[in-house]
């Protein structure tokens, strides 16, 4: 076990843990945002630079700070490492820049996009970005294409996080799509418009942090905040069968896998569960899905408050505030 300090909070993690994972172990506001890193997909991360943090002390043996900001999702924590995330204004300033870069080519078509309301880029830009853009040039544009009969690809919205290609590599056999061309011309595409019809290919919709890959069976059906999410399961021979049903009245509009608090799917579901069982009678409903209170989807959804969890949350916040204060006093002493 090694000791790491993140924003003034000490924690112990096993060796070989990344800074991001260590921060997630602490939880709360100090967790760096991640647009491309996905814990269930191997080799993901290191591309979007959203999770950049400052390492104030490299390790107990060599306490020099790292010269540049490091991506926390692929940098291993070391014993005695001191990490600054939201307590460092330089990090926050850099994140503003990262938002601006990600939005260079991203169209501002959230009113049309089906991902709006559960979009990682929307949240990231809202929390860390600026309200205005300085970009005046033409954005790169592509026509939306169908990859397979169930998935729509809006290449305009893609931020090239490569998550979907890792899904294709690691979850499906006979990979048929990937990234072609280079630099500004790079785009996700299929091999000569070859259909993506693998049994687990639908998961690329769930891993997409933006609205580049969307469910065609849910296309423009309903805004996500007008639907009611329910935890449900069924006996599925191919996958775990644990899903979220997005319903309106008695209609199942969409079926997705269950995402954790960082928007990551732990148990991927098969295409049969995703597309072919849009009927309440096919599912055993467990209850309403917990939606974070900050999300627009939680509008008009009421749930019982878990007091023990709330207390823990408050205590964690206080701890975090203490850490923040410590850092500030240190700075003023200098």
């Amino acid at each position, binding site marked *: 076990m090694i000791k790491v300090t993140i924003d003034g909070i000490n924690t112990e993690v096993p060796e070989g843990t990344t800074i991001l994972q260590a921060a997630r172990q602490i939880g709360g506001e100090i967790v760096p945002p991640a647009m491309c890193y996905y814990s269930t997909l191997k080799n993901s991360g290191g591309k979007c630079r959203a999770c950049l943090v400052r390492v104030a002390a490299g390790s107990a043996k060599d306490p020099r700070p790292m010269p540049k900001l490091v991506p926390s999702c692929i940098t291993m924590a070391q014993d005695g490492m001191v990490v600054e995330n939201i307590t460092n204004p330089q990090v926050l300033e850099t994140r503003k820049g990262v938002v601006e870069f990600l939005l260079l080519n991203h*169209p*501002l*078509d*959230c*009113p*049309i996009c089906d991902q*709006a309301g559960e979009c990682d880029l929307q949240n990231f830009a809202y929390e860390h970005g600026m309200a205005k*853009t300085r*970009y*005046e*040039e*033409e*954005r790169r544009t592509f026509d939306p294409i169908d990859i397979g009969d169930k998935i729509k690809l809006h290449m305009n919205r893609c931020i090239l996080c490569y998550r979907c290609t890792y899904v294709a590599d690691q979850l499906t056999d006979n990979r048929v799509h990937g990234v072609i061309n280079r630099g500004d011309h790079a785009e996700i595409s299929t091999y000569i418009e070859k259909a993506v019809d693998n049994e687990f290919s639908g998961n690329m919709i769930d891993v997409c942090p933006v609205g580049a890959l969307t469910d065609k069976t849910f*296309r*423009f*059906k*309903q*805004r996500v*905040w*007008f639907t009611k999410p329910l935890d449900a399961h069924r006996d599925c021979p191919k996958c775990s069968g644990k899903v979220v049903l997005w319903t309106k009245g008695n209609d199942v509009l969409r079926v997705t896998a269950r995402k954790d608090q960082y928007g990551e799917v732990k148990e991927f579901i098969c295409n049969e569960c995703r597309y072919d069982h849009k009927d309440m009678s096919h599912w055993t409903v467990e209850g309403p899905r917990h939606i974070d209170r900050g999300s*627009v989807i939680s*509008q008009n959804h009421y749930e019982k408050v878990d007091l023990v969890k709330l207390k823990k949350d408050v205590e964690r916040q206080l701890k975090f505030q203490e850490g923040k204060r410590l850092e500030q006093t240190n700075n003023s002493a200098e």
Partner: protein
Amino acid sequence: MTSLSGRSKVVVKKEMTLAERMYLPAILGGVIITLKHLFKRKATVKYPEKKREFSAVWRGQHVLKRDDKGAERCTACGLCAVACPAEAITMTAGERKKGEENLYREEKYATTYEINMLRCIFCGLCEEACPKEAIFLTDRLVPTEFGRGEFIYGKDKLVEPVDNRVDVTKRQTPAVLEFKKHKNLSHNR
């Protein structure tokens, strides 16, 4: 108990004097008041022949605007409906087909858009929430009807006719008008 306002009068039931019992002075006083009002400015107007002047920011019946080329601005994003405190707005979205570019501005549009005018409290939050400058409240009044069903306004009543545009320039904030000048910003073309 003492009165809070200090303006209440204690009623005393005492014998009326002769002058009071004749009632004539009181009647005369009443006639004078009536005559005075005959020459005063009237508080009412003869609606609908004469209409009162509205404030520029009066919040009356909604309009769904079209853009300069006559295409509908609304893209059924649902932000007005989620902002609406009275839950008066409902809509369904549809995908624009090839060849309908002059009818709808974006690839998604509202196939139905309904405002229940009985629920609506004319707060103007839908107007504030709209990212596409599609919905505006205007200085028109919602006319009275005989049935409740007639108050549910569909697109036929809400979308402005191409040949009879509704002027909402007074309602646009200076910031919006300034933004519209900058056509070099790609999301403003």
